[in-house]
């Protein structure tokens, strides 16, 4: 049983989890203030014979305060978030040295196209593997997402990566894995009856292992 976000597996996880925690604290405080207020008022000011409510139409000062505080907090939060948002999603932020892979989503499979030994997509030695994403650890990876039919969404929880694959669009999402091992790809956008079965596996290799795997695949062997 996990009570928190999945274990961090990419460079994005750090800032996102920190931001998540920060918001959790801010909202936590707000929540406590409100709920404690409610409960105390409910107990303290419950109707009793002889009591009469205090007749007031409100206090401008109080209202200014509880308008200003959220406003400032939210703007600050917005600015911080935007910094990381641009870092993660903006096209310009994709590292020039990123290793490009093609991920083609169709009902209900992920078809991953690898550049092959020459490291370039769109050449003769490319090869495609179904539902398996193999990448190198600590190397920026850019997946070029396309879709065959409906809208799908490429989601790897450990990497904090999610990007819709939209038919007719060519969207590039980048990330950098920090942990070797095996993870899972899920589809996060309803894409039909087999939506839930659109499961792929992610293998994060050391550079050597990855080279070996590519060589073996290029040779045409399946495992």
């Amino acid at each position, binding site marked *: 049983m996990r009570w928190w976000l999945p274990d961090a597996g990419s460079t994005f996880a750090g800032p996102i989890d920190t931001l998540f925690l920060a918001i959790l604290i801010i909202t936590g405080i707000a929540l406590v203030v409100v709920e404690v207020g409610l409960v105390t008022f409910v107990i303290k000011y419950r109707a009793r014979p002889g009591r009469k409510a205090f007749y007031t139409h409100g206090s401008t000062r109080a209202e200014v305060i509880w308008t200003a505080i959220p406003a400032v907090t939210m703007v600050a939060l917005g600015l911080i978030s935007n910094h990381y948002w641009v870092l993660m999603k903006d096209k310009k932020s994709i590292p020039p040295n990123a290793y490009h892979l093609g991920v083609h989503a169709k009902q209900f*499979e992920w078809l991953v196209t690898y550049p092959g030994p020459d490291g370039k997509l769109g050449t003769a030695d490319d090869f495609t593997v*179904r*539902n398996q994403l193999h990448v190198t650890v600590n190397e920026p990876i850019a997946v070029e997402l396309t879709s065959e039919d409906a809208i799908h969404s490429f989601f790897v929880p450990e990497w904090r990566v999610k990007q819709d694959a939209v038919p007719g669009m060519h969207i590039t999402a980048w990330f950098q894995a920090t942990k070797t091992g095996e993870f899972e790809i899920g589809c996060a956008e309803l894409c039909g*009856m*087999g939506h839930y*079965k659109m499961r792929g*596996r992610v293998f994060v290799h050391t550079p050597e292992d990855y080279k070996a795997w590519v060589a073996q695949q290029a040779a045409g062997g399946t*495992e």
Partner: protein
Amino acid sequence: MKGRIFSVVGGMFLLTVCSKGDRGTVQAAPPAPQPAVSSDPTAGAAGGTITGKIKFTGVAPKNPAIDMSEEAACKAKYKTTPTEENVVAGPANALANVFIYVSAGVPAGQTFTAPTTPVVLDQNGCRYHPHVFGVMVGQNIEIKNSDPLLHNIKAIAKKNRPFNVSQPNAGMTKTVTFAAPEVMVNLECNVHGWMHAYVGVRPDPFYAVSGPDGSFSITGLPPGTYTIEAWHEKFGTQTATVTIAGTESKTANLTFAAH
């Protein structure tokens, strides 16, 4: 637009069929599918027979291997790496999985009743069994899932109403029928891109699928001159003309060219 109207009408038809509540039950698959024989109402001595062998010239293309590593349950059912069944060649260039049927010559207006025994389409080891088969219009096809994982069966048809149903668990069955003759209706599974099956839907029982040795036989033909057509998923079609008098048995060998 037109197609859509058909689909709607077809929908109503299917509705009436389903509402009869033909809740399928698992049945053992019949031996090597020769539906024509088993389903021919006029089976037996009466009528002539066409037998023959299907061959091909040239070299058969290699069937691509299937990577089932993401479907452990299916992978476990094979000792060697399974391959697709695009071209199943037998000894001496015999060609299996060819659908042979009488495309012309059956007197118009003559109607045949569909056999009550269903054709079983089994999804086992993430492959369709059989890969190519024929049914008569209105004959039940019992689709069953022998794998403990999701398969969906999508029928891509022009004359018939397309359907798309899914079977998430092992042992699930579903009965479907086709309302109009069509050669061929394609069946595919979107979860496993390599899964394809082909159904020949015929108004008469005069069809067969070539066996591993490429042989086939169509029986119970009344006297007359017939055009028989053979269909293969990769090699296209071949035709031949056969004249039957009485209860004789004629041979018609067809040869495809592998390109």
